[in-house]
């Protein structure tokens, strides 16, 4: 297990490095940021002088070399736009997204386990059918559309919730709600599937033959096994929820990493793009490693490999 983990960490580092190089070049291929920094009417000479000064005219490999040099000093670059170290900006944004994602994911997981288990107990029963259609319908709608409709309904028409922004519990309800539906819909199906498998496993028969109560059969014997595939999918959802965060943060004005990335890509604020991608990738890969550990904790067969 330990060997597996260290291998996993090593390959993650490899992946991050690869991603980083790819993004560096990709970003630079999207064009000279000088146009964007300067006003539209800026004279040609000013433009030239600007690119010269910030090294945007250098060949890309020289830019990369410079960047690597900075990196070895622990410097992730400096945002020309915001005149601050990129890492500061990213570290400000990441807790927002993390808390948003953590709350959303917890709700999705708990909800999915509950709904999915009940649905699996009587496959094709009425609860199963209803929960399937409802969860899948919700997960099938474009999220930005749901978000704006929700604002119009719950804030403007009904006045129950604030439209947007950061604050107490009411401010969380809509963003979380939007962020939850897709993973919830997906996870309900995964839980349902793996619980059906678990509930029809032989060891469930053994438990029943022992006279174990039905509740314990479902929530102890079956669930513990049924959770394993759920955890894997939940891990894959980590990156997907970052996608959702881009949309939710943009609409609800949450200063998270998703919005930051989109904004900085649009503004060609390369330092911020790179720093945020690096941090996001580290977070996502860490989550995956944590999930591997969780998997091993839950499944002794993996632990002893």
């Amino acid at each position, binding site marked *: 297990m330990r060997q597996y983990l260290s291998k996993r960490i090593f390959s993650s580092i490899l992946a991050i490095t690869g991603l980083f190089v790819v993004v560096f070049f990709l970003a630079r291929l999207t064009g000279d940021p000088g146009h964007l920094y300067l006003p539209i009417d800026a004279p040609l000479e000013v433009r030239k002088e600007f690119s010269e000064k910030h090294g945007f005219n250098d060949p890309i490999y020289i830019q990369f070399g410079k960047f690597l040099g900075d990196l070895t000093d622990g410097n992730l670059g400096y945002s020309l736009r915001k005149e601050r170290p990129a890492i500061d900006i990213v570290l400000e944004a990441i807790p927002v997204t993390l808390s948003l994602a953590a709350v959303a994911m917890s709700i999705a997981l708990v909800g999915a386990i509950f709904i999915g288990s009940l649905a699996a107990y009587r496959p094709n029963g009425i609860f199963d059918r209803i929960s399937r259609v409802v969860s899948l319908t919700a997960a099938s709608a474009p999220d930005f559309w749901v978000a704006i409709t929700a604002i119009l309904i719950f804030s403007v028409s009904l006045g129950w919730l604030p439209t947007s922004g950061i604050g107490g519990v009411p401010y969380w309800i809509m963003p979380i709600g939007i962020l939850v539906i897709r993973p919830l819909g997906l996870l309900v199906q995964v839980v349902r599937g793996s619980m059906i498998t678990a509930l029809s496993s032989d060891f469930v028969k053994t438990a029943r033959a022992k*006279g*174990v109560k039905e509740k314990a059969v479902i929530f102890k014997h079956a669930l*513990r096994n049924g959770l394993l595939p759920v955890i894997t999918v939940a891990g894959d959802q980590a990156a997907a929820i970052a996608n959702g965060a881009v949309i939710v943060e943009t609409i609800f004005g949450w200063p998270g990493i998703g919005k930051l990335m989109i904004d900085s890509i649009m503004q060609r604020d390369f330092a911020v793009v790179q720093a945020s991608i690096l941090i996001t990738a580290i977070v996502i890969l860490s989550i995956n490693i944590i999930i591997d550990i969780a998997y091993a904790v839950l499944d002794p067969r993996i632990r*002893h490999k």
Partner: protein
Amino acid sequence: MVTKVSDANKSLLKVNNLSVSFDTAEGSFNAVKEVNFDLKKGETLAIIGESGSGKSVTASVIMGILTCPPGRIKSGEILLDDLDILKLSDTDRRKLMGSKVAIIFQDTLSHLNPVFSVGSQIAECFEVHKNLSKKESWKRAVKLLERVRIPNSSKRAKDFPHQFSGGQRQRVMIAMALALEPDIIIADEPTTALDVTIQAKILELLGELRDERNMGLILITHDLAIAAEISDKVIVLNEGKIVEKGITKDVFINPNHGYTRQLMDSIPGKITKQKKKMSKKFSDPILEIKNISKSYDTIACDDVSFNLFPNEVLGIVGESGSGKTTISNLILRLASPSNGEILYHGKNILNFNKKDLFNYRRKVQVVFQDPYASLNPTMNIFDIISEPLVIHADFLNKKLHQSKVSDLLISVGLHPDDAIKFPHQFSGGQRQRIAIARALALNPEIIICDEAVSALDVSIQAQIIKLLLNLRNKFSLSYIFIAHDLPVVKDLADRVIVMKSGKIIEQGVTDDVFNFPKEKYTKDLLKASPSIENLIS
């Protein structure tokens, strides 16, 4: 005293007119038809039947773990202490499960929950039924493990099912069943997957415990020999119906029903006489195995040498882990040995170039143990059987494939129309025939049968063995016949090799080895295999 006697005669369990059906797309079929039996204290009832005979379904019904749907109990009652448990509420019934009646399953790896330690799974019985504290339950669980002779039990209790060997897991299962000292234990094929020596020990333990606690034991098995060794009473099930019923000795000595007789005839070790007619002319060996060794994590095969002669059946016997499959893989060049050489007609196959190897593969074919896994489920039978012909395209004109496949199907006892079907439409025995047809397609010299009949019911086993013998005569084949089951080898092989831990322990002409074993291990093996002869004689 009087009460005691009547007590002893009282039935612990009575099954009356039990009928169970299953609903499928093809319609509903009756898996169990009006089954009656009873069980008394200290008594062992063997339920004998081949796969699909309804024996396990009966056990599931008694334990209340039949999956419904698709299963459906149509009629009948199950009296446990005069209480019809089919009429009880789930809660009341649950109280009896494990405490009055407990079950031991065949496939212990899947029947034990993989994510809980064995100790906690045994302790759960006490927590559920006796409301004991966790600590006390654990203590008792450890004691039980000790009773079923798990060494170092206080430590092993914390281990998980996958950390135990098959035999040990079966002991854990038994411990779990014993936990609440039930009146009845149902053992559903408890030893099927185990080696003979371990099987003997488990059966011994079960008998011992039955006597110690004066329990009733229901032993469900397909193996007549096991039933003969351990049971007092026996019922024979065929297609859900009881065809024969009575005291074990009576049934085996004097079977009434045709099906029982057929089962008795199929017991391996009886075809011996037909085989003897074959005269053997020792010529140059086709295959010479010289000092081969191979190790994976452990040593799988260590300095093994033997020869295979034309038109000979060579049996290789050994328990799991003895290295017999490794040898098959080495000969098939699915793996390479770390040492030694394999000569085919005097040429070392390990030095073969691509073309030589390709030609070699044409001459050496294989039939694997598991007919469910050895046929590609996405290909139809024609594609499967003709695949060797497609690969070795120069062997036969493509236009002739159709008729060749038809011929092959006929020669293994199937119908040419079967060619358009898919593997899942066939039974295990039929699939094995298909695998044999495929092996014959290229007119090979050698067929390696790697546990080719182990997974089959006895009656089917007998048919396949007969088929193999016929084919040998017809096509002058040589077989390497690998098995863990000694009687099967006895039926078929001209010579036998006994293996243990990667080494050849003993080899010789079949009858010599079976009748006058030289090595202790061979003797142990022979002794451990249950047999009806003991009962009859």
